[in-house]
């Protein structure tokens, strides 16, 4: 469960989103050109000095209609710095044809969108949209490269243009829809975001990947809930089986406990004896189970399950890989082991209570 979640998240973050993004405060709620970042340089200076920040880049997004002689389609056109973008996202490695780092009126377009528009490399496509000052923009671009990230919606609606040309065309100099940031350690993103927030202008806000990928994070939580319910069911039946066997073990030794009690061994000592017995059994089981299960988790992390075609079927949902890896996580192994140990210890409570009910004479006469 953890492995597939991590994999989905990692794929989505690495492909385009990044670990965090800096927006003008109302951009995500209100949207539009009124809520852009109008001073990139100031934020870049802050980010350059921040420990833990790996790379950052500015993006300007706009929507419009792209048309060829026969076809039209809605398109998200994004102005990017191709060099910086290659360090923060997987756009460069997603190249399918043509070139990635183009200049002038050259588009780097999602393969599905190019197909929808019946475009081949070097074909021309017109774009009609709105500039940052809300003036009308229309231009003719050349298709210089196509990409395929596997994220269906993204590939069928996105195209990228180098910042120099984009800025000139859309009046977007020193402007961003947002600044995408990658970090050295994803686990540190909350802390880094907090540090950056303190230094940023007050009208900007840092969104971490948990907020940027809210829907996916929530979906994983739901999946985890169902996973934990199922695990709870397994733990429940395992607990009862251990308890039943513990109880059978104790109930068949009532005479023995009667003898022990009659020679002066206290109930507390018998409790301790039973407790030690269950601890020895539990540790024996853990010694066998923990390394073998850890090995399996490690093995399937290195050699994930592959379900051919799953990414194609689930493409609308952002699944971009057929691999379903496990996660070799020492913490997960530790807490699962701990749960089993606790269940084993709990399972001896009723048998202890059962033994305590007998007086020495009753116990010795027990059949």
């Amino acid at each position: 469960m953890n492995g597939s979640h991590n994999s989905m998240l990692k794929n989505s973050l690495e492909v385009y989103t990044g670990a965090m993004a800096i927006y003008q405060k109302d951009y995500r709620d209100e949207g539009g050109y009124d809520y852009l970042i109008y001073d990139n340089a100031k934020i870049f200076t802050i980010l350059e000095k921040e420990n833990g920040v790996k790379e950052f880049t500015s993006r300007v997004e706009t929507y419009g209609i792209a048309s060829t002689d026969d076809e039209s389609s809605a398109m998200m056109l994004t102005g990017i710095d191709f060099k910086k973008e290659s360090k923060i996202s997987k756009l460069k490695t997603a190249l399918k044809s043509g070139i990635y780092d183009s200049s002038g009126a050259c588009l780097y377009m999602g393969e599905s969108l190019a197909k929808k528009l019946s475009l081949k490399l070097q074909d021309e496509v017109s774009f009609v949209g709105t500039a940052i000052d809300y003036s009308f923009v229309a231009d003719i671009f050349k298709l210089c490269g196509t990409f395929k990230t596997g994220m269906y919606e993204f590939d069928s609606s996105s195209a990228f243009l180098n910042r120099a040309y984009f800025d000139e065309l859309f009046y977007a100099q020193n402007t961003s829809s947002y600044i995408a940031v990658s970090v050295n350690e994803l686990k540190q993103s909350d802390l880094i975001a907090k540090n950056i927030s303190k230094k940023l202008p007050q009208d900007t806000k840092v969104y971490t990947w948990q907020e940027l990928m809210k829907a996916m994070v929530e979906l994983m939580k739901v999946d985890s809930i169902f996973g934990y319910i199922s695990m709870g069911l397994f733990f429940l039946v395992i607990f009862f089986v251990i308890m039943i066997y513990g109880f059978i073990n104790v109930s068949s030794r009532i005479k023995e406990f009667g003898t022990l009690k009659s020679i002066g061994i206290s109930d507390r000592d018998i409790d301790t004896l039973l407790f030690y017995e269950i601890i020895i059994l539990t540790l024996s089981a853990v010694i066998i189970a923990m390394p073998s299960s850890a090995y399996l988790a490690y093995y399937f992390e290195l050699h994930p399950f592959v379900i051919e075609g799953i990414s194609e079927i689930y493409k609308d949902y952002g699944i971009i890989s057929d691999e379903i890896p496990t996660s070799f996580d020492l913490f997960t192994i530790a807490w699962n082991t701990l749960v089993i140990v606790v269940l084993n210890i709990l399972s001896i409570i009723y048998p202890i209570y059962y033994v305590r009910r007998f007086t020495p004479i009753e116990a010795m006469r027990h059949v």
Partner: protein
Amino acid sequence: MYKTIINIALKNAYLRKSRAILLILMISLSMGVMLSIEGLYDGLAANMIDKSKRSDSGEISIYAKEYRENKDMKFNIKNTQDIITELKSIDGVSSVVSRFSIQGLSQSATKSYPSSLVGVDFEDEEVFGKFSEFVEVGDLNLGKRGCAIGKELAKNLKLHLGSKVIFTARDAHGDIQSIMFRIKAIINSTNITIDNQTIFTNKSRVLSYAGVAQNTSTQIAIRTASNSCITIIKDKFQNYDAKDFKELNPMLKQMQDMMKIFNKVTFFIVMFVVFIGILGVMYVSILDRVREFGIMLALGYKYTYIRTQVIFEALFLGLGGFVFGSILGFILLYILKHHGLDLSKFADGMASFGMANILYANIKLIYFTSSFFAIIFASILSVFLPLKKIKNLNPTEVIKADS
């Protein structure tokens, strides 16, 4: 004779009350939780499939060839009315709707988003899939310039009831055209294609906007309860692209299959552990009474009678667990069916995968019957090993050894 054996078995099964209660508790709790999970997963998949059929594909949909690959309105069905008439004449077809869809760009005052404009006849849609039930806010009296918009699309465009939305696309003549709507209803169908990117309005308006004839459509969707009807339609409309629900929604079908597999694996694991539990109890119960069985054999009691008695003992224990497990499972399923599992806290995540915020469970007789047979099977299987022990007994030695 068998009446006596059954009576003895019943008494013996519950002779050691603590053991019996523990075993029944284990079976009933695990069965109760297992049935709840099974019902909830089934309910989740059934709900997604039902809403997808009602809001979009029906049991089968007909498209013009190449439409589904290109999503281009030039691949359309021209003689819609004739096809509808022909479809309605087929036995088993309960309702038919036609739709016309255009891909384009929706714009609010501040935002733009790729989307689809779908022209429908709302009266037909009501018969087809109770479309009004998908309306979260507003109503379907759209008037001249009204539209209904998918919930997520409205959210992305920062639109609400009464807002204006402009849709821009290329018409049939190759000209870029825009059309303005006022939002009269917001749709929450849990079908992500609709909720994320669809604007609905009256079909005649969309056809005029697109510049195509009124008898044109891009999809004809059919509701039917009959599988043979699907085959007939596929055969009859071979010049078109006629696809059934499973072909149109492989993801939903696969999700349902995966849930079934998961339920079966869970079922198998739980029943295996139940088997281990019964085996332990029965084994010890028999070992405790080896001398008793030795005496019975010495008195001329046949082994087959002992076997029957032991099997019945295990069955009584298993059935005790089944009865309480069924009651618990039914109560949990009943609560989940009528009150549901509220996951509104994760609304965005649920919506992104086309799931409703509140999940309702299904209750099917098969849950109980399959558990019944599995428990019977586990109970009978669990006594084989202990019975082997009895079968090999030498009565004289056993009586001597224990005396």
